[in-house]
Structures are given as structure tokens and as C-alpha cells.
């Protein structure tokens, strides 16, 4: 968990590694848009499965799969349990009663706490959305050089300051994690007992004690790094001439992404118009069917 190698991009020769960073960023945007627009559980599942297949294609190591699995399981568990307990739409079918309305204290306060079947299903859909983005985020970071990401972001016209901040955050997150582990070790060596963190006040105190040294070191490093890249010619005068043109494969992938977004968006729009009774076109019946089932 605290090993920086587990988090950083790793050189590789797989198709995923070789895919242009600019295309990967477009895929990120497409996926982000897709998981918001799409409601169909089976399509969301397919998107998640495709993202995980990307990890297989990138030959993600077992240690990284384990890390990814932990994150995905926590996301799924958190989403499904919270939605199952707090689902407030109708109809809803209680599966389990956690706190009966007649239970002392908590019963009258909460009106009863249940696990709802519909909430679980809704939570699963939400979980697939967040897991898809999570899995793709890991895939992007593990297979793309920070420098390539930076170039990609600038290529897509994100202001260079924002691009640099975003990529620096990604680049140094593993280092910060590693240093956090060192700080915790140092605290152990100085006799800062873990039991002190058991109380809320102790937990806050320990969190600050850990935060200060990590933050101070991060700030010092950030200043050095910023000066280093500035003095290597990176800045507002950054020239795009050095960006190699997209390969045919990259262009095809981009065209495919664009086409998929436009088509899916149009289909979804038509379906929304039809579903709300605003507009109906008989010739689009197949589109409506497709949208209802897959979007």
C-alpha cells in the first residue's frame, strides 16, 4: 500500500502502454460522460468489464490487481450498503430489518433501518459507475508516463498550470504515501502510541502530527520540481511543435470514441424525448428499443 512502485507508471510494451496519452485522455472523458449518461446496468457492467479487460491487456501485476480489487470492493460495498439503507424511492421492498421501529432509542429516532432490495440494485448501478472510473483511472496512471499525460493535457488545451498541477499530483502521490509511512514509523519510534488515536481527540491530534511533516516535505519538493521544470523550458511559452502527430490507430480510436459518444448521445436524447412524450418518431422505434435496453 505504501510502496511507491505500486502506484507509479510502469514501462511496458503492451498495446495499452503504447496507446497515445492523448487518446487515453479522450477515453477518460468519454467514459466519464458515458457512466453519467448511461442508466442501463448491463451496459455499465460491460463498460466496467471492458476497463478491467484493459488491465488484463496491460498485464497488470498481481500486486496491482490486489490493490485495485481492494479499492473496487470498498467502492462497491460502500455504494451498495449506503444506497440499500437510505433508499427513499417508492416502491421499495425491505429485505432485512436492522433496527425495528419499536426498538428503544434508535427505533423512534430513525423510524426503523432496513436493507431495501431496490436500494441494493440502485447502489450496484452507482458502484459500477464509480468502479469503472476508478479502474480506468488506475489503468491510465499505471500505463502512462506522467510526462506524456502532461503533454496530452496541454495538447487538449488545458491551461499548462492546471495540467502541471494535475500531473504533479499523480506523479508524487506515491512518494507522499511512502513518506507518510516513514512519518508513521518515526512516530512509532518516538513512542507515539497508536492507542492514543483511539479517541476522537487523539485521532485528530495524530492526523495533524502526520500531516505537518508530510505537507512540509511536499511543499519543499513542489517548489524544487516547479523550478526544475521551469528551468527546463516548460511554461506558458510551451510549444506544441514537439508533439508527434497521432498515429493512424490513434486517430481511428479517437474517431471511434467521437462516433460512439455522438451516436449514443443522440439515441439517448431521442429516447428521453419519446419517454417524456415531447416528441415521437415512428421511424426511430429501433433506436428507442436500443436506448431503453442499453442506455
Amino acid at each position: 500500500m505504501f510502496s511507491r512502485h505500486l502506484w507509479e507508471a510502469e514501462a511496458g510494451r503492451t498495446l495499452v502502454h503504447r496507446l497515445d496519452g492523448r487518446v487515453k485522455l479522450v477515453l477518460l472523458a468519454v467514459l466519464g460522460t458515458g457512466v453519467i449518461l448511461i442508466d442501463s446496468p448491463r451496459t455499465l457492467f460491460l463498460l466496467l468489464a471492458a476497463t478491467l479487460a484493459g488491465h488484463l491487456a496491460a498485464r497488470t501485476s498481481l500486486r496491482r490487481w490486489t490493490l485495485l480489487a481492494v479499492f473496487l470492493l470498498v467502492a462497491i460495498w460502500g455504494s451498495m450498503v449506503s444506497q440499500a439503507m437510505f433508499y427513499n424511492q417508492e416502491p421499495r421492498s425491505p429485505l432485512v430489518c436492522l433496527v425495528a421501529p419499536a426498538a428503544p432509542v434508535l427505533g423512534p429516532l430513525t423510524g426503523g433501518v432496513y436493507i431495501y432490495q431496490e436500494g441494493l440494485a440502485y447502489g450496484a448501478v452507482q458502484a459500477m459507475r464509480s468502479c469503472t472510473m476508478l479502474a480506468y483511472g488506475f489503468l491510465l496512471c499505471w500505463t502512462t508516463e506522467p510526462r506524456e499525460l502532461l503533454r496530452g493535457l496541454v495538447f487538449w488545451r488545458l491551461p499548462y498550470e492546471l495540467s502541471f498541477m494535475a500531473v504533479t499530483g499523480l506523479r508524487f502521490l506515491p512518494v507522499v504515501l511512502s513518506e507518510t509511512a516513514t512519518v508513521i514509523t518515526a512516530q512509532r519510534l518516538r513512542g507515539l502510541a497508536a492507542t492514543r488515536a483511539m479517541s476522537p481527540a487523539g485521532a485528530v491530534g495524530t492526523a495533524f502530527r502526520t500531516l505537518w511533516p508530510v505537507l512540509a516535505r511536499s511543499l519543499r519538493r513542489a517548489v524544487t520540481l516547479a523550478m526544475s521544470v521551469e528551468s527546463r523550458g516548460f511554461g506558458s511559452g510551451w510549444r506544441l511543435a514537439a508533439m508527434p502527430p497521432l498515429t493512424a490507430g490513434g486517430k481511428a480510436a479517437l474517431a471511434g470514441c467521437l462516433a460512439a459518444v455522438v451516436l449514443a448521445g443522440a439515441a439517448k436524447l431521442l429516447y428521453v424525448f419519446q419517454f417524456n412524450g415531447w416528441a415521437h418518431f415512428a421511424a426511430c422505434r429501433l433506436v428507442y428499443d436500443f436506448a431503453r435496453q442499453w442506455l
Partner: protein
Amino acid sequence: MAPLIEIDKLTFTYGSRSSPTIAGITLTVDEGEFVLITGRTGCGKSTLLKALNGLIPHESGGAMTGRVRLGGRDTRELTVQELSRSVGLVFQNPEDQIFATRVYDEVAFVLENAGLDSGIIAARVKETLRDVGLAGKEDDSVHTLSGGQKQRLALAAVLAARPRAIVLDEPISQVDPLGASALLELLLRLNREKGLTVVIVEHRLQEVAAVCRRIVLMDAGRIAWDGAAADLFSTPRLLLDRGLRLPQPVAVCLGLGLLPPATSIEETVAKIRAAMPRLKPAAAAAPATTARPAANEELISLRDVYFRYNERSADVLGGVSLTVRRGEVVAVMGANGAGKSTLLQLLNGLLVPRAGEVRVRGGRPLAGRGQVGQVMQNPDLMLFCPTVEREIAFGAADRQIVADLLARLGLEAQAGDFPLALSRGQRLRTALAAVLACRPAVLLLDEPTTGQDYAHIGAIAGLAGDFAAAGGVVVFCTHDAELAAGYASRVLVMKEGRLLLDGGPRQVFARGGLLATAGVRPPPAAAIGEALLARTTLSAEEVVAGVQQAFVGSGSGPHACP
């Protein structure tokens, strides 16, 4: 040679400060020069470097007066991007400046920023990596490189732009002696063969002095001396008064009255032999051992200790056995990866051996129980309290010890300050005080002198020595052979997880050939002593005394009685 860098009455004040960090500096550096800028910590050296490539005033909030010209053009009129093609800047810690995770990408970064074609970039990267000795490592992850290789990569990352000058801010402070000498040799070669102008900021004079011809000494934002290295070393007070360490060859020459002093071992030996042609080594008697007599009580014991980080990896420690008794100051030396830090972590109880036994005061070491205190290599990560006083008081045995340590380490004025906002030397002393306040039986120091100037090194070593004299044990990892020779009563040399040598400094540093296989260099005084006196000497004073004794015995030399 035409001047490449012209600094005229430069004054710079950071936005957060009231007094200038650089005050009226005027300096000229000719094309092809190799210049060392030195001075105590905080004297403005690094700020001056930033002015050379335009980070000051373009990227630093502050007030600048005066003028810096590069190749005749005012740096105010050029952008940092334009200046990056003329002056490359390398920082102290390669870990903080390496941006990419692949060697090729790191070197290509500056070229891409210059808008070059990919074909030209590929050729330039290959050529630059060959120049810095990293040929064939284009596709390697930067994490597979050693500390010295990372620093050479950081150098390549700016050299690729083919700048006319390169400025380096303490580039060898984070690397081991072999990495440091490889980097300095590389810089010297680039300077001689390619005519690259090199400006280097460093206070490890003993390593840099031999390669530079001109030294600029700074003090409180001003230039206190600017001239030939040999001339500066002829007036040693200029350096000693500013907390800088004289290179041992220089100190030997000065001690024997040989002016101008030599800066390398070979030159020193030749100079002394020339001055005293009939010097008889046998006439000199070996001085009494300086090793601290160890008390009887055994505080640390390791018996046949094996350790590996996971089942599939190789042993990091393989069969280490040793005992350390009260009062000993033990230096642990060896190349990076030899197992020094692992040994410390076994002693402080953070790691448990795979086989064998580690005992501290007769029991298994338990982390955080106060029996073992450790100061880490980066003290910043140990400081977590809002004030220096509270930092030292955290876990302190009593209040009195806090006041004593504040006074002893010169931190009284900073008692109410936020520890992480102090200077590097002050932060290290605060961390040391915080550990000592818990009154451990064993004090572990991991590279305690990295990035410290000599004055701070002396303070730290003095405190550690007093701790041992009071009945404790000090174990410190270091690459600094002069420190080990001067302050340790015992030196352990590790190689590939095993103890290669274990003994007093004189005994260990006499094994030059074996030390070289472990990546350890004895102090220059040892080599000079071997060459002139046929015995191992540990300090410049000892060499001088030995040579004078031998000289009197031989009745020769420039001052010999007729």
C-alpha cells in the same frame, strides 16, 4: 576567454524577508571556467544560482536590483524558457527534480519543450546519455538507478539542451563517495572536452577542491573571497571562520608550511617528498590508539542475524554477528544497498530477523519503548509538534532535560518556532534533541551529516560523543570517512549484507584494498600516511606530527639543520 556570466551589483530580497539574501554581488565567469561557490548554509549561494538562469527575478517573488548578463544579454530581457537553452540548473536532490519515470523521457523533456523534432530528440537523448555514462539505459525505469546515476540523469536532463553553462546546487550531497567522484569526474571531462562552463555550489570542499580552479567564497550574501583555489587554501582562516572543512591534503600542506597547498593526495605526497627528500618513515612512531576504551557491559548483541524483506527476495543481511558495549561510538560504512539501514532497523525493533537473534540491553528491541532512539536521514519526517520546545518535550524524561538540550544545541532562540520552518541544520538538531530527551540507551543516526556544513557536523558529533561518554551507545551510518575516523571508536564496513571489516578506525582504514571492494574510501590522511609514513593516520594533524617526527629523525628537508 570572453565573459559568459556577468553579475553587476546584484541584490535580491525575498518577498517574505526584510533583509537581502544577496547583497551587491559583482562577479564574472568566463566561458569554459569551472567555478566553485562555497560558504556556510544560508549564505545566499543557492539564491545566486537561481539568478543565473532567470528563475530570479522571473519566477521568484522578491525585489532584485543590479544586473545579470548572460552572453551579453540581460536575463531580465529573456524568458526562463529562453535561458534554459543557455544555462542548465541541477538541484541538490535528484528525487525532487526527476519528473518522468523513464530515463529517455526525462532527458527528452527539455528538448520537447524547445519544440525539436522527434528524430533530433532521439539522437540528442542518446548522445547525452552516452556523455553522462548512462548509455543503453533509455528504457529503464528511473527507480532502478542508483543515487549517483539519478544525479547523472538529472544532469543529462539539462545537458541535452546543450547549454553553454551548467550550474549545480550541492549535487553530491545526496550521493555516496563513489557516485560523487564519478559525477565530479564527469563534470571535469565535460568542462575540458566540451568547453562547458561549470558553476557548482558545494560545501564538501574536500571532494570538489581537487577539480575546480577558482573558488568564490560567500558570506552573508556577499563575496568574501574570489580567486584561485590554491590562494584561498593558503589562508585557511577564511574557510574555518565560516564553518567550512579544509580538505585534508590542504590541511597537511599547511601544517607543514608547504605553500601553495596541494588539493589531492598524490600532489600532497609529491610535494612533501620533494620538500623532504630523505624522509624516513621508519623513524616515525605510531601514536597511541585513540579508540575509546569500551566498558564491559554489553548493550547490543547480534548473533548470526539473517534478514530478507520478503520470502522471494535475497538476504539483505546474511549472518551478521557483533556485540557493542557501553561507551562505544560505532560507524557503519558501506556502499548503498550494503545493508546499513536494515541493520539500524533491526536494532530499533522495526524489523525482526529471519534467523538469528538481536538483543538490546539483554532483551528483544521493541520500537518506541525508549530503549533505542533513532534520528532518520531526513529529519523533517520526524518533526510533528507545533514548537521546538514541545517537540523536544514530547516523550522527554523530565523538563530540565528540555532546557539543557535547547541550550546545548543552540536552539533557545527558536524554542517557540515551528520546527518545520527552521533551517535544515536546525531541523536536524531539533530531531536529535527530541530523541535524546527520551534518554535512550542506544542512539542510532542514519546519515546524520547529509547536507550539513562542518560546523553542524561538529555539533552533532560532539553531542553523540557526550552521549556515549555518559554510558550510551551510538551507532551511525555514514559515507563520510573523515567523520568516522574522527569521531567513531569502532568502524564496521558492510558489503552485500555481511560484515567485511570490524575494528578501530586505524585498523579498518589500513585495509585500503578491501575497503575499495566495499565502495568505501579511507580519509585522505590515511592514504597520505600510508605513502609517507608506512602507517595509517586518521587526521591531518596526525600526518603533520608524523612527518615532522620522521623529518627530525632523518635530518632532511627545507628546514633541516645543516
